[in-house]
């Protein structure tokens, strides 16, 4: 499918690739993002890759839509031959169940698995980082095994502690800061996942892989406050 270039308001262009969540499609998005970053196009303020779309935010007083769309089109051709750099692989010590994973029993009940099997399957998964977004550098993770597909909580929690590791609707995430959420939280990591005092404020990038290694509470706490890249 030929990617589509669309207007998204008066200062953004949206490039749409095939409409599904797939690492191959995401690789096309990331390739285009890197090609456009390198091109340093005049008037471009931000380049935002997502699952299957890429947004280019521009200053319409510096560059007009048509000429920028043409340059993005050129970028699409160049991106076809672009070789993406290998991502990083993060292994984050995570304590599962008990007070740190209040929804483990619920996930076990819905999936019909034993709690230790939920932990084993989840902690052995190497999640793929599709992109960083939402709020506070949330990594959108792919790769959750189908057997762990469970619905969101019918009533979202008003406050989930930062570092919570969870799943819902076929997706997984680890939230960086305390926030409301309807995900099922089965574990917690104490590694810092976000810090607005440093640059970049997020340790992960699209294309990285993350594994939430099952450890004891003592071992998980030993990593408390460490920046995730310190564990590489």
């Amino acid at each position, binding site marked *: 499918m030929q990617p589509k270039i669309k207007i998204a308001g*008066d200062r953004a262009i949206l490039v749409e690739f095939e409409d599904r969540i797939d690492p191959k499609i995401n690789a096309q998005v990331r390739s285009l993002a890197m090609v456009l970053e390198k091109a340093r196009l005049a008037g471009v303020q931000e380049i935002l890759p997502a699952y299957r779309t890429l947004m280019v935010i521009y200053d319409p007083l510096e560059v007009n839509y048509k000429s920028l769309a043409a340059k993005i089109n050129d970028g699409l051709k160049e991106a076809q031959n672009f070789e993406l750099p290998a991502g990083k692989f993060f292994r984050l010590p995570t304590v599962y169940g008990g007070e740190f994973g209040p929804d483990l029993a619920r996930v076990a009940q819905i999936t019909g698995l034993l709690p230790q099997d939920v932990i084993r399957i989840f902690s052995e998964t190497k999640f793929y980082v599709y992109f960083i977004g939402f709020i506070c550098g949330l990594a959108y993770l792919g790769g959750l095994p189908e057997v762990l597909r469970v619905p969101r909580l019918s009533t979202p929690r008003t406050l989930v502690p930062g570092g919570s590791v969870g799943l819902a609707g076929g997706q997984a995430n680890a939230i960086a800061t305390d926030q409301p959420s309807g995900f099922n939280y089965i574990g917690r990591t104490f590694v810092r996942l976000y810090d607005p005092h440093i640059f970049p404020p997020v340790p992960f990038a699209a294309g990285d892989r993350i594994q939430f290694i099952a450890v004891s509470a003592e071992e998980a706490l030993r990593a408390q406050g460490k920046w995730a890249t310190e564990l590489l």
Partner: protein
Amino acid sequence: MKAFQVVNPGILTTIQDLGRWGYMKYGIPRSGAADKFSAQVANWLVGNSSQAALLEITLFRLELLALNNLEIAITGANLLPHLNGQPISMWENVHLKTGDRLVFKGRKSGLRAYLAVRGGFSGPEFLGSRSVFPRGLMGQPLQAGDILEMAEVKDEQKEKRYLPADLIPAYSHKDSLRVILGPQEDRFTPAGIKTFLSSAYRVSAQADRMGYRLEGPKIEHGRGADIISEPIVPGAIQVPGDGLPIILLWDAQVSGGYTKIASVISADLNYLAQVMPGDNLRFKEVDLAEAHEALKKEKALLQEIKKILRNP
């Protein structure tokens, strides 16, 4: 140097500048003054740069005690500012003395006022900006007892600076917000698009710096309200499954999975920052050329004002 002691923080008062740009790819919203017209004019009135940090005051009850002789300017919403019990003028520079009390007593028009101090406030800086964004662990709203610091200022401007009356924005007589349809307009039925463009929507009580939820006729989807999550910018209008639009603002999440019927054009975002819960909004479709023309006009107006205020 100390500027003010916060006697009463009011409903919501935060330090803002023009925001942090270039970090959306890390999941960090732009934040910054919601009404960037009023914020910049306030700064220019006291001889600051456009980027200087100032106070964004939402509604009333903010009470400040001056801890030094200060030069300030108040712009934006008319929240009935009083100095030592007497009403004071907005849209001009005003000199305060140590011990003066500044109180915002009510609301006459608009939602957000801006208070700039000569020198600029000096709150903590995160990723190149002093804009407070509590959800991102970047500062907190003002609390009672806070001491607000500012940059050292030696001189003061003797001359009066003011914005000519015909350039002061009115916040009550706008016909409609201009929008560009898309990028998911094809996910709505023609009847749904017509509903959106022909109805009045009321701003609900759920209205803050992240966005405004609107109430009114439901907008009909053609095939589902959910999309694979993608980037969103301030001004985007999401329509989730309940058919009621949400306009996203400067502290909104940077990605989301609801269909977007349209985006408010950039030139109308400052006005949007001044609408109140309970106000009615209508939407009018324009094309890209018209949106960019409006933005050009707004920039020209700001440049003219900057010249009038003789800012370096």
